[in-house]
């Protein structure tokens, strides 16, 4: 176990700035997820930590030590690549053994080490195969096993589940936290999948365009996304974003959707009269009966049943589209007119111009289980 600190990292390729004054620190034993869209600079950052790309400016400290003059092989790192990067001319055994052979361990020790990690990843029966004889899942496990085999204090996992099928990804998402916990290593995990990020990260660093936009626990990020973009990235289906201008009433601050008032308790008074965007998670919206308090009339446009939930697209009177999500199997309208209700306590308000979060109505929300 070790710590990782990045200080003011800058990386440019030709005229393009890939990493822009980026700082980050990962605590001993922590799993940090680097989350962001492709092109955000996650992979570059990871490779920089690994020591195969050099930063133009800034410092990388592992365990408090400056890595500027330390080559990749001396950084004590295990890394799994998105494309697996298995050695095609070596058997799975030799692939996994590579971190062990580097330390000149004895043959028996190597064999034992490989066996152990192979068992853990359930690939001990294919160790003699070459990569091209392995299934995609086996390749992925071999790549992971190779990263783990040397018991490195710092593990870098570059979207290791990206190139495997959904079933396997689901399995591994369940299995990985256990594995990583067993390793006890400090982990930096790169992913584009917010569910993976939330499932695995002690903290999540959200990256875009070479910067870290927000860093925090999964709950913090889900419940208080720093800006509209982050709010969009987290959550499936994506958050509903509607232009509003908050007003102040006798009961406090509210916004209107199709002339129906939605109270926003706990919002600062400064938002009143400002052009804002309200963010409403689809799962925070429910279908209700006409006449119920706060019922908003809508027309159901389409219904999409997903695995564990059903997503419905509805249209408000003012022709604004809203997504509503409900657990699969619960009743709801499939077409025609309907009514929805919004719990103002779950809403976010963003500044329309900057996109920054002004306030989240309830940071104390307890529904993150549903979001995952």
């Amino acid at each position, binding site marked *: 176990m070790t710590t990782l600190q990045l200080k003011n990292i800058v990386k440019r390729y030709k005229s393009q700035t890939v990493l822009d004054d980026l700082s980050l620190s990962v605590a001993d034993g922590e799993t940090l997820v680097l989350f962001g869209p492709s092109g955000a600079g996650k992979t570059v950052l990871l*490779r920089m930590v*690994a*020591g*195969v790309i050099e930063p133009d400016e800034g410092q990388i400290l592992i365990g408090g030590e400056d890595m500027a003059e330390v*080559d*990749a*092989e*001396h*950084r004590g*790192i*295990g*890394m799994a*690549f998105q*494309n697996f*990067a*298995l*050695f*095609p*001319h070596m058997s799975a055994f030799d692939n996994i053994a*590579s*971190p062990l*052979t*580097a*330390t000149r361990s004895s043959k028996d020790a190597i064999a034992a080490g490989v066996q152990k990690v192979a068992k853990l990843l359930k690939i001990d029966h294919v160790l003699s195969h070459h990569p091209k004889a392995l299934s995609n899942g086996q390749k992925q496990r071999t790549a992971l096993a*190779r990263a783990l085999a*040397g018991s490195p204090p710092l593990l*870098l996992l570059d979207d290791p589940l990206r190139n495997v099928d959904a079933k396997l990804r689901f399995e591994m998402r369940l299995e990985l936290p256990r594995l990583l916990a067993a390793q006890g290593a400090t982990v930096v995990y790169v992913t584009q999948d917010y569910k993976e990020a939330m499932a695995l990260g002690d903290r999540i660093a959200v990256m875009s365009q070479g910067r870290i936009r927000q860093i925090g626990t999964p709950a913090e990020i889900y419940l208080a996304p720093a800006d509209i973009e982050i709010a969009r990235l987290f959550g499936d289906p994506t958050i509903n974003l509607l232009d509003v201008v908050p007003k102040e009433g006798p009961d406090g601050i509210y916004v209107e959707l199709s002339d129906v008032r939605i109270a926003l308790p706990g919002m600062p008074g400064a938002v009143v009269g400002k052009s804002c965007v309200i963010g409403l998670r689809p799962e925070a919206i429910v279908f209700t009966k006409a006449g119920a308090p706060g019922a908003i009339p809508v027309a159901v446009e389409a219904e999409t049943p997903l695995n564990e939930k059903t997503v419905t697209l509805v249209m408000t009177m003012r022709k604004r589209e809203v997504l509503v999500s409900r657990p699969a199997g619960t009743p709801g309208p499939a077409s025609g007119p309907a009514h929805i209700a919004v719990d103002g306590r779950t809403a976010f308000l963003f500044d329309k111009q900057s996109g920054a979060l002004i306030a989240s109505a309830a940071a104390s929300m307890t529904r993150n289980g549903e979001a995952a």
Partner: protein
Amino acid sequence: METTSTFEKIFRGTALLLIVLFFMFPILWIFLMSFQTNETILRIPPSVVFTPTFENYQALITGKLTSAAGTLDIAFMRNLGNSVFLSVASVAVALVLGVPAAYAFARHKFRGSEDIAFTLLSFRFAPPLLVLLPLTQYFQWLGLADTYFGLIWVYQLICLPLILWIVRGYFEDISADVEYAYRIAGHSWFATFRKIALPLAGPGIAAAGLLAFIFAWNNFVFALVLASADKQPVTVGALAFVTASGIQYGQIAAAIVLSITPTLAIALYAQRYLVEGLSLGAVKG
């Protein structure tokens, strides 16, 4: 998948036959010639009916050539040995020098790398005569004239650019991540180069080496100008049968056959590298 009509089959077969005939006939004819005496070779019209003789090969191998002017000593086997030594050594040196350089150009886009690579390649295209003439003088001063060392150096002009250019393509086709993975696993760049890059580029290196060998083997003018008789390759040696007292056609033919044999043997042995090796990525874009 592909539908082949009878007509096409016949067309392909005929075309292939004609091609094989065109490319193989001269070699076959020379092969037959090498088992004939001057007398049967010079018959008009030519004929394939003759009593084979091993005289020509015997003369070449023993180094005694009987001609109109008596017995001549010839050093053909020595020439053959020189060719083998010069070609093998030159290709070996070119591999030792060229493969790491090719690796550097493929993996590290460093300042001026493209320019250096192009400069190296452009040597392949410099007319050999241009450098050869002043070179004789410099070799004289440096004491490199008439040394195998000097010759092998000059042969780099043929081998090195070829190897650089082809092998570089191979290295570029190896995923960089595979190498990164090995380094991150704790191995030095050198171990990575040796255990990952080299084996993966192996077929390409073999193919490039084979091509370089062929070109080195076929060279004529370098050794002639720069070295004494005991270091001449077979390409010069074969001219020894054109003597003032007559042309020994049979021996020339036998010499040609013997001089093709080593490259052919290597090519047959390494054929899968040559065709398959080149196809992996050597020259592709």
